């Protein structure tokens, strides 16, 4: 009872209601513009949106596809959000995710004979560490030389994709036309939620990590320090916080969450590392974080939305022959509109002016 009261109070005190509304408006505008696009090229917008819905929430199978797409996006969005909260723009999630995936695959193959209770967490942890190391590099460069993390992480993405391909082809490839590692043993596979089903329990791990991140950022002094540096590095220095150390730490934490995105994909459905396996989860993670306004809890909802768009987009492409690059266009628009506070102000100004006009 007490808990419920506390919860209601928390919801009432939630200062981000207006920003939630704001994000909603941004999505609606992006979807409307997407619809304009569909119509402009002679497609039936009802058919498009029907398949978009049908492919994402229309059936149990679709829902499982949506949740499958959502899981890595929760990690990726969270990773970007952690960076943002600390004043850093980690575009390197894609690269961190690749190293996390490969490291988990390689170690997973070695520890497959161990009992699951040890092998599974070890394999996950290794993925997080690998992603963390790949995040450490741009963090260190930023802290020591001031090299902007946006450029360094993008370069590191390319290096990671080439590097994991190199490692796989030269050291871990099994015979076959696809460049991939051997299949992981069941002991290091994240089991499906429903036996035989498609949804892996990776989503439960993702939700736990969301909770841990929320706790880290809002309930610990480290989280406070990180956010202070994010809000104002100068104030942080005055307050005795070593901002360069926080920069490195934030990138490492962000990178390790990104690494988990890769680990859970290959330990879940794929069951092995496959070169070039990510369709750009790291980049969609940027859209997720921006839409969620870096709130870890809101990341869940934003990831679900983009997961649904990814899953629905595939169905739309398959059945209505509408290229699912439309989803990329919508993502880009969402980011632009959410990043632009002035746009909503313009809308509200327009509304109040109209109301004022009606009164006279």
């Amino acid at each position, binding site marked *: 009872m007490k808990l419920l009261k506390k919860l209601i109070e928390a919801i009432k005190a939630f200062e981000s209601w207006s920003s939630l509304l704001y994000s909603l408006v941004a999505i609606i505008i992006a979807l409307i513009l997407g619809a304009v696009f569909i119509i402009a090229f002679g497609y039936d917008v009802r058919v498009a949106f029907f398949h978009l819905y049908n492919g994402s929430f229309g059936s149990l199978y679709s829902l499982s596809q949506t949740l499958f797409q959502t899981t890595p996006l929760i990690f990726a969005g969270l990773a970007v959000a952690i960076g943002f909260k600390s004043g850093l723009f980690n575009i390197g999630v894609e690269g961190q995710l690749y190293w996390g995936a490969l490291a988990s695959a390689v170690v997973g193959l070695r520890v497959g004979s161990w009992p699951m209770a040890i092998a599974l967490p070890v394999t996950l942890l290794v993925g997080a560490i690998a992603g963390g190391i790949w995040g450490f590099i741009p963090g260190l*460069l930023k802290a020591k030389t001031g090299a902007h993390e946006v450029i360094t992480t993008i370069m590191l993405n390319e290096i990671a994709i*080439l590097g994991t391909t190199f490692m796989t082809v030269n050291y871990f490839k099994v015979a076959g036309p696809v460049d991939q590692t051997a299949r992981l043993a069941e002991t290091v596979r994240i089991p499906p939620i429903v036996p035989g089903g498609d949804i892996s329990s990776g989503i439960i791990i993702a939700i736990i990590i969301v909770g841990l991140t929320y706790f880290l950022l809002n309930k610990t002094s480290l989280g406070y320090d990180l956010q202070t540096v994010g809000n104002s590095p100068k104030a942080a220095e005055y307050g005795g916080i070593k901002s360069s150390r926080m920069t490195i730490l934030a990138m490492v934490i962000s990178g390790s969450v990104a690494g988990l995105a890769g680990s859970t994909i290959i330990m879940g459905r794929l069951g092995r590392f496959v070169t070039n396996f990510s369709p750009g989860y790291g980049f969609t993670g*940027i859209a997720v974080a921006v839409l969620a306004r870096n709130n870890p809890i809101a990341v869940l909802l934003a990831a679900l939305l983009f997961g649904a768009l990814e899953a629905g987009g595939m169905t739309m492409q398959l059945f209505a022959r509408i290229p699912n690059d439309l989803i990329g266009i919508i*993502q*880009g628009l969402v*980011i632009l509109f959410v990043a632009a506070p002035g746009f909503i102000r313009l809308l509200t100004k327009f509304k109040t002016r109209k109301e004022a006009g009606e009164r006279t």
Partner: protein
Amino acid sequence: MTSDILAVIFNLNTFNAALRLSIPLALGAMAGAFSERAGIINIGLEGMLLMGAFAGVFGSFVTGSAWLGVGFAAVAGILTSLIFAIFIIEFKADHVVAGVGLNILALGFTTWMMQMIWGTRGASPSVASVPAIVIYFLEDIPVIGRLLGIQSPFVYIMLAMILAGWVLMFKTPLGLRIRFTGEHPEAADSQGINVKKIKYFSLLLSGFFCGVGGAYLSLGHLSQFSRNMTAGRGYMALAANIFGQWNPLGGLAASLLFGFTDAMQMRLQGIDIGLANDLIQMLPYVLTIAVLAGAVIKSRPPAALGNHYESGE
């Protein structure tokens, strides 16, 4: 073995290729210099280059003329930068976030359009491209002849534009106003400079340069557009801009270095040096990081970079 590698690296053909490969980077770097000198971080260079590359092929496809394609590319670059400018200047979007949004939008848009027009997701059909030109009196000079005698006209266009850009930025009153805006918008405003107009102008100029740079990728280097054909060059251009100290000439020098690494990388893949191609391909990216890390220690960006400024605030 070592002599083979050196022969491939220090070869006039490599230098020739380096010069060409530096075109989109140098134009992008100058685009970055203009927008950042006016106070706007321009992560959107990648998207502007990509839109230019696409529009170039589209224009050439529709009109049959490669040069009209270049015109299409320039216009597309300007229009893309106009979208960016409206979000940044009018709606006060965070520069970096909006830039990344623009790039994702541009990638989705160009891939979508490719499917709408040509029904393919990978690469467009071949179109008329801009042929190399021969300059007779240069052709006969030993080394210069090999480098500049027979060359893509884009090389000359690029060199002329860089020079014009440098003059504009450092030798004209308008250039002074642009630099003033990025350093101290309040003071610029009080001097009667229309800060907003300057920012629009600088960004649209950025788009123009990127449009032409993108057209080189699709019409000069190749004769088709392929998905995401810029592959991070916009970000490299931004790094080249920082390395070149927000100066078009410095950006050109940095771009030549990047272009050289890229040319070397491509040529090294052609001979067996006992190093996997995946590793060789990393070279330009590794160099970009190294250059950036080394360059920013000494460099000083425009003071008001990344800030929003509203007249009368």
